[in-house]
């Protein structure tokens, strides 16, 4: 009897110790992203799945409003606080690297050959100096949203397939009152929205040029192609009179109000339009030109911060591996509506032919991403050159020359030229 008790006791105590050591070894890592309802929900779901599979790791999930996200992240990490794993806009990569905020992904867990074969090509912008600095769960591209009711009213059957058709359709979809004021616009240009990407990666290429030099250090949009691209965009407002920049405050608002025939936007806008009562819309791939198609893609990547060391770094790498797994990407697509970063998930027939996500996914095939030094001032280049052409009647060539000069200074400053 005594022996039995003793055995029982030792079993219990060793189990207790074992259990205790697992608890004691439980690593807690922190993950930060910006606040957006569906993204928060998705991460929560993925954390739950991950923690089930990895009982020794807990992931704490914190999020902040988009407006101050970047500032908050930079400050926190640089003062030694902050997360172990952070989500960053791919355009911030250089700033974050420069500021010593993130560290390269360990190559034993994230082999470069695997990355290059598994992910969409645009992810290569995360490779700098021979290392990968982050990986996305999802990517975004642009597509054309169009209002079915307004199209029907104007006698248009399907979406425009070419740039020229787009102009034509826009004209047909525009309505003005007796004073010449817009009641309804054909195409909602919003230079502060996604249209600057449209100009930079799509239009400039359509007209035979490219936005930056191959090494990304010199501006190349200051060319005939760039000017033609800018002219195409400004002509909507200036020549064709199919709308004004920021009509009804933003393109997306005009579209949601049923007052814009077409807008260009990312897949993240789908849920807003789906929720808008009475809005009957469809999505199509961006119109092509001369038989070619281009698109702009962007993404938010997950990176390991310099704060993560030892077992926290290990745990963070593990979680990152899960975040970039096929399973996580499908969850993300279903919850957030953002496109999977791997063709193996994205180009699955069901996803490819999806009425809403399909056009975006198909667009990924021919999409490129701009390597931004600092997105805000570079975005301002297009906003300003657009205003120069429309408000000050400058020629697109002169406008681009002016903004290019300023932006090149920014680039030179960054690259130390």
């Amino acid at each position: 009897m005594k022996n039995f008790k003793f055995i029982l006791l030792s079993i219990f105590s060793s189990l207790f110790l074992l259990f205790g050591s697992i608890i004691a070894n439980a690593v807690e890592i922190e993950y930060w992203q910006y606040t957006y309802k569906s993204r928060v929900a998705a991460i929560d779901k993925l954390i739950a799945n991950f923690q089930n599979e990895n009982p020794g790791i807990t992931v704490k999930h914190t999020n902040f409003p988009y407006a101050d996200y970047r500032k908050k992240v930079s400050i926190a990490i640089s003062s030694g606080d902050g997360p172990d794993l952070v989500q960053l806009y791919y355009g911030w990569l250089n700033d974050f690297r420069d500021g010593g905020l993130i560290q390269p992904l360990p190559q034993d867990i994230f082999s470069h050959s695997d990355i290059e074969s598994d992910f969409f090509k645009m992810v290569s912008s995360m490779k700098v100096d021979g290392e990968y600095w982050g990986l996305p769960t999802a990517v975004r591209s642009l597509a054309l949203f169009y209002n079915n009711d307004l199209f029907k009213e104007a006698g248009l059957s399907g979406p425009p397939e070419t740039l020229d058709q787009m102009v034509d359709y826009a004209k047909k979809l525009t309505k003005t009152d007796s004073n010449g004021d817009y009641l309804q616009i054909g195409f909602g240009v919003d230079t502060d929205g996604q249209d600057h990407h449209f100009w930079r990666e799509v239009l400039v290429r359509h007209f035979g040029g490219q936005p930056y030099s191959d090494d990304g250090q010199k501006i190349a949009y200051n060319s005939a192609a760039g000017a033609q691209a800018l002219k195409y965009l400004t002509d909507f407002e200036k020549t064709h009179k199919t709308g004004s920049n920021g009509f009804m405050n933003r393109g997306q608002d005009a579209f949601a109000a049923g007052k814009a025939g077409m807008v260009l936007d990312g897949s993240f806008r789908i849920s807003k339009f789906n929720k808008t009562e009475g809005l009957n819309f469809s999505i199509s791939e961006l119109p092509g030109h001369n038989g070619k198609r281009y698109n702009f893609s962007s993404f938010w990547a997950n990176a390991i911060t310099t704060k993560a060391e030892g077992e926290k770094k290990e745990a963070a790498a593990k979680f990152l591996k899960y975040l970039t797994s096929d399973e996580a990407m499908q969850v993300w697509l279903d919850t957030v509506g953002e496109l999977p970063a791997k063709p193996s998930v994205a180009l699955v027939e069901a996803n490819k032919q999806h009425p809403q996500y399909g056009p975006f996914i198909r667009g990924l095939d021919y999409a490129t991403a701009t390597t931004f030094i600092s997105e805000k001032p570079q975005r301002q280049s297009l906003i300003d050159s657009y205003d120069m052409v429309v408000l000050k009647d400058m020629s697109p060539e002169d406008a681009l020359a002016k903004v290019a000069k300023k932006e090149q200074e920014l680039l030179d400053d960054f690259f130390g030229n």
Partner: protein
Amino acid sequence: MLKDFWENITLNQKLAITAWVFLLIPIIFYTTIRFYPTFEAFYVSFMKWNLLGSQKYIGLKNYQRIFGDEDFWIVLWNTIKYAIIGVPISLFISFVIAYFLNEIKFGHQTIRAFYFIPFLTTAVAMAWVWRWFYQPMPIGYFNIMLSWVGIPQQPFLKSIEQGLYSVMAPAVWAGLGFQIVIFIAGIRAVPKSHFEAAEIDGAGRLQILREIILPALKPTTIFLVVISTIGFLRIFDQVYTMTSDSAGGPLNSTKPLVLMIYEYAFDTYMLGRASALTVILFLLLLTVSLIQLWLMRKSK
């Protein structure tokens, strides 16, 4: 020993020591929170620094770059425009209203309250409201009202010519209440005897205004000019909120110095350049204040 010391000093010395004790914490405060940061601002203005790395001394380069930047001159001129247009307009309007409102007895409190309420509002909140009013049809009320009388729509915030005035309007609107109340106080402070003497002399309304009221209001007016000039030169809240799609736009036409400082510091993290701009702003404000103080001395 302390007790001996305390008993052997004069009353005056005791009072002096007490005074310094009272002033101790405030002195520490002002030194560390006002004076030291001022020097630090000057110091950083000679550096190149992006907050995360180390500071690199570059002498006057920041200032050179600023003065060579075309946009800076636009922004400086904008800032001055806000003041030299905003101040006279708001003082004129508020004086006229104060003059007539002072004579009203019936409903005086209520009407005065209506004029004053905008002063209590948060600039950001009202900037949103005005931004909405400025929208083109069918959303913006101003344009809707213009269309009723057949005037073509105005771009307001989206126009290079109208942008600055559109942003200035809510700032003027909000400041009127304060100025009106001060003016009324100033008018009422004029001794009744002056008015009675003028009436006996048979002076007309306009004469009384010119020869009695306006001279008596000189210190009040100068006070308001100083305060509102400095206020307009530092304008920020309205611009930030109303031009968020192209900050200070379009094409920098509405951008004041403070917004440029904010952008350099917290958008592009060029803290040396931003500090240099704050020094320039400081010198601008200092010059303006000194000129006005000198004018005030002259009037005495």
